């Protein structure tokens, strides 16, 4: 296969970026997209050029690092991560445009690498269970129905890749935040901090500068882990009921 790549090149966070075109003549249809990028980078290094920087780690679709906006879709035309996307998805001779995630809250560090620590700060704002759980409890001490357990697990499948933000026309992080809120809200272990959690996580999400949700459902269509927008509706319910019924907890407490 022969392909033409249009890749976003940007030296540093504050540098002005631009598209550079690369002719790639040694592509096998069995290569993953990242392997294709590796081969191109090897050629660039041999020529003494700066290779294209991109995030990657596990290469088996579970770490969520491989953030590439390929031909107008996060992770390319299939509902997978970029590492699970193969070149057979593209036509011989095709021109492929590769861009970084675009969001004010995800600044570009270099080329295709963006800073996704905004997601970490949202998670740190309340995406955990604080209670001391003690020793390992006996099985079935806390009964959870199969359906609820499945739904919580589906929400917990979110790998925080940021494809939802990249796909959303408003760069909204609602699918990510709602998945993280839902995985705890559904389970009894998460109930103790339920209200405080959703209030803090939504506040952090807004502080980071993500857009609002207009229910286009593009996030759901692009999510490599098929997280449902039903989670967004759940977070809306959680947030409103928390805001109208919670005690206003001051940080520091005890005053």
């Amino acid at each position, binding site marked *: 296969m022969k392909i033409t790549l249009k890749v976003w090149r940007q030296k540093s966070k504050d540098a002005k970026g631009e598209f550079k075109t690369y002719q790639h003549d040694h592509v096998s249809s069995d290569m993953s997209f990242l392997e294709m990028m590796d081969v191109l980078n090897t050629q660039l290094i041999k020529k003494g050029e700066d290779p294209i920087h991109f995030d990657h780690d596990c290469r088996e679709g579970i770490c969520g690092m491989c953030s590439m906006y390929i031909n107008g*879709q996060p992770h390319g035309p299939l509902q997978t991560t970029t590492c699970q996307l193969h070149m057979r998805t593209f036509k011989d001779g095709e021109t492929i*445009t590769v861009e970084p995630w675009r969001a004010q809250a995800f600044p570009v560090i270099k080329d295709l690498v963006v800073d996704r620590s905004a997601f970490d700060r949202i998670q740190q704002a309340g995406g955990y269970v604080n209670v001391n759980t003690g020793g390992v409890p006996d099985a079935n001490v806390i009964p959870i129905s199969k359906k609820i357990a499945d739904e919580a697990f589906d929400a917990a499948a979110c790998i925080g890749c940021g494809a939802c933000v990249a796909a959303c*026309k408003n760069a909204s992080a609602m699918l990510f935040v709602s998945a993280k809120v839902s995985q705890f809200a559904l389970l009894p272990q998460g109930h103790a901090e339920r209200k405080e959690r959703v209030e803090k996580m*939504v506040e952090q*999400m807004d502080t980071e*500068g993500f857009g*609002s949700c207009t*229910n286009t459902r593009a996030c759901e269509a692009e999510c490599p882990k098929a997280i449902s*927008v039903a989670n967004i509706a759940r977070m*809306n319910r959680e947030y409103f009921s928390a805001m109208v019924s919670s005690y206003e907890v001051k940080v520091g407490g005890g005053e």
Partner: protein
Amino acid sequence: MKWLIDLFSSTLGRKVLMALTGLFLILFLAVHLAGNLQLLKHDGGRAFNVYAEFMSTNPLIQVISKGNFFFILLHAGVSLGLTIRNRKARGSVGYAVTSGKSSIWSSRNMGILGTVILVFIVIHLKDFWAQMHWGGIETVMYDGKEYRDLSKLVAYWFHVGWYVALYCFCMIAIGFHLWHGFISAFQTLGLNHPKYNPLIHFVGKAFAIVVPALFAWIPLAMYFNI
């Protein structure tokens, strides 16, 4: 009261305002249509004029009407604020290539559709509502009582070709706006459940087609004397 300010300044709270005002305006559309359909009666506009007189004089309707104006402005105002925020959220550099495959057209263009509708509302108010209240509208007598002859004014405009075309175009815009807006409002309010999702989707889509189609049918029927 800080929590209340926090609630309605958050993106989620502002979306609730969009959903609630949107649902109110959907109800308003249904009531407005029920009134307009009386224009199709071949009674010289009597039923429509009696209805219009009631709507512009009944004290309860007057209160709801003030609320309606407020909700239209709130719906437009909040959406403007959110749109500015959403544009900013993309960052200074946007995408060079975007694909529309993952969402429906109307959901991505609610702002443009809403602007068309807002302009239509202004024209619509100027030509009918303002004439009814402050214009030198003609009157007609039914059973010894004087009524303002709004149906005559409507009949005048609905025989002007470009006006009928503009009206129908705006009804298409309302249809697309409703196609996304009706279902979206329920999702924003957190009402998403497999038991009643099919009903919301069916009613939402049916409403988005039937209501604007009936609105548009009235000027078409009058223009072509059907």
